[in-house]
């Protein structure tokens, strides 16, 4: 990146160059620092305070975190939400990303017509609001309407139907699958773009050697797009551990039945804003947000320092 700067720029007086940089970068850096970085730091700072009913703040060090992780009134719902969040993420990794990879693989085959039509259709749900998607599925899966039940009956599986969103044992998995349905377009698109970048010679050479499409995909293309799969995984992780909208719009802030679908996002919301008779608690809310920040940080660092470093060797 050591390209020589244009002479005109290099010969510019220092003061004018600084003014130019301030003009170009100043507004972005100011808005971003003030409304993104500062609130993050201030939230973490607030997590070390407690507030009384009069609204006065008092410094308590790490006491909020001890309460959150060890006092059973707080720790039980917290660990429940964290565990559910992990399941939510696992469903995405196990279902969304393999389907996305498979669809991208099919779309990148040579000589397939109507590609853009398929891509448009499959990416469409991704563009919609999570609220809309959640409510639509809520109706479709509702025993009142009976669309899902009718569809299963028509293929002879009527007995399989259950009010999945209402049962504690299936609510979370069902919500995760709704989210998978909506966001499968993202891995599909990113991996499709990566597959298009694979040099044709590599694929042609394999074809001359008599390899079929499936083996070309499995042995040649897939290893080459592993870095993109790593990126998709970390994006999924961050998105899942920050999810809120879907659970809130389908199940409300209480994430029922009996907190079976509670994840960290909804737990954070209830802690911060309160629910029913429980009052909101900004300092405990800040503590929950701080823990979520560190969970996301661990995931991102794992990606940057373990996965990406290992994969760069295969990058092309």
């Amino acid at each position, binding site marked *: 990146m050591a390209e020589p*700067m*244009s002479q*005109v*720029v290099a010969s*510019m007086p220092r003061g004018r160059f600084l003014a130019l*940089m301030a003009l*170009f*970068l100043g*507004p*972005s*850096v100011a808005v*971003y620092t003030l*409304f*993104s*970085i*500062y*609130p*993050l730091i*201030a*939230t973490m700072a*607030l997590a070390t305070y407690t507030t009384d009913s009069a609204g006065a703040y008092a410094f308590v060090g790490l006491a909020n975190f001890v309460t959150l992780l060890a006092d059973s009134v707080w720790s039980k719902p917290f660990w429940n939400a964290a565990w559910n969040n992990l399941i939510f993420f696992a469903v995405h990794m196990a279902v969304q990303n393999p389907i996305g990879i498979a669809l991208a693989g*099919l779309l990148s085959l040579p*000589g*397939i017509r*109507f590609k*853009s039509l398929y891509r*448009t*259709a*499959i*990416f*469409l*749900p991704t*563009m*919609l*609001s999570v*609220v*809309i998607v959640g*409510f*639509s*599925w809520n109706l479709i899966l509702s025993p009142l*309407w009976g669309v899902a039940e*009718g569809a299963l009956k028509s293929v002879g599986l009527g007995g399989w139907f259950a009010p999945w969103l209402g049962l504690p044992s299936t609510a979370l998995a069902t919500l995760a699958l709704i989210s998978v*349905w909506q966001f*499968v*377009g993202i891995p599909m*698109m*990113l991996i499709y*773009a*990566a597959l298009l970048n694979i040099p044709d010679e590599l694929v042609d050479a394999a074809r001359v050697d008599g390899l079929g499409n499936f083996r070309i995909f499995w042995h040649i293309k897939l290893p080459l797009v592993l870095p993109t799969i790593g990126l998709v995984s970390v994006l999924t992780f*961050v998105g899942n551990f*920050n999810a*809120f909208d879907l659970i*809130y*719009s389908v199940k409300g802030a209480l994430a029922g039945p009996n907190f079976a679908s509670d994840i960290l*996002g909804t737990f954070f919301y209830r802690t911060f804003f309160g629910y029913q008779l429980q009052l909101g608690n*900004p300092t405990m809310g*800040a503590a929950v*947000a701080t823990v979520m920040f560190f969970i*996301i940080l661990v995931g*991102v660092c794992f990606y940057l320092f373990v996965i990406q470093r290992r994969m760069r060797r295969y990058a092309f």
Partner: protein
Amino acid sequence: MLKQRAETLGVHVILIAYSLIAIGPILLVVMNSFKARKAIFGAPLAPPNADTFSLVGYAKVFHASHVVTYFGNSLIVTLASMVLVLLLGAMAAWALTEYRFRGSTALALFLSIGIMVPIRLGSVAILKMMRAAGLNDTLTALILVYIAQGLPLAIFILSEFIQQIPKDLRDAARCDGVPETRIFFEVIAPLLRPAIATVAVFTIVPIWNDLWFPLILTSSDSTHTITLGVQQFLGQYITDWNAVLAALSMAILPVVAIYVIFSRQLISGLTAGAVK
């Protein structure tokens, strides 16, 4: 040859099946929103016909909610955020890719934190700040937060685009003595038009669709956005299926229309290597 044709057919069968899974539920909701209550339950999979066609749900939505206000608010917030994210993002991306100065790499890293760390986690302090500044329950508060949220990824995407612009272009302009600010606004900025679709998908659509910040930063009907408005309307009218289906369709149709119109540019922008 026969084997290859069977294989192609199989691929199409899978792709058609998955496309139906993707658009089926959306189609079902939109279709039933134009039907009378009896037909919604009697034959959910049938398209509306002369007998079953009804707009009663839409009438209810217009009558019972401030849907026009919500829609206007979403339009203002999204358009203002979009213009500012694109303008400020392009200026920053240009400065970071074109000029090297002490601290420019550190600044680029600092700006990229926001790509991975969701701004939502700062909500407690954002609400406190907005209250202190008297911006609580205003569209301005939403716009400021959304600009901060959208900038990091926009700068990243726009930097990738700027790097692909041939260097001769600006150097020729510099030889003619064109000032640096005019080089950006008159030479570079127009060339960034193809990047708009990519930036829009990753930063603008999430703003239109966001539920979280309207939920915590706005409290009155006059500042609700369409996503929050629809969410609250749905909660209140959950038993009125006509109204619920109509409200859902009204939120779905504009996004689908814009998406279908721009999908070609959008997908080519996505696959043009902006995100590798």
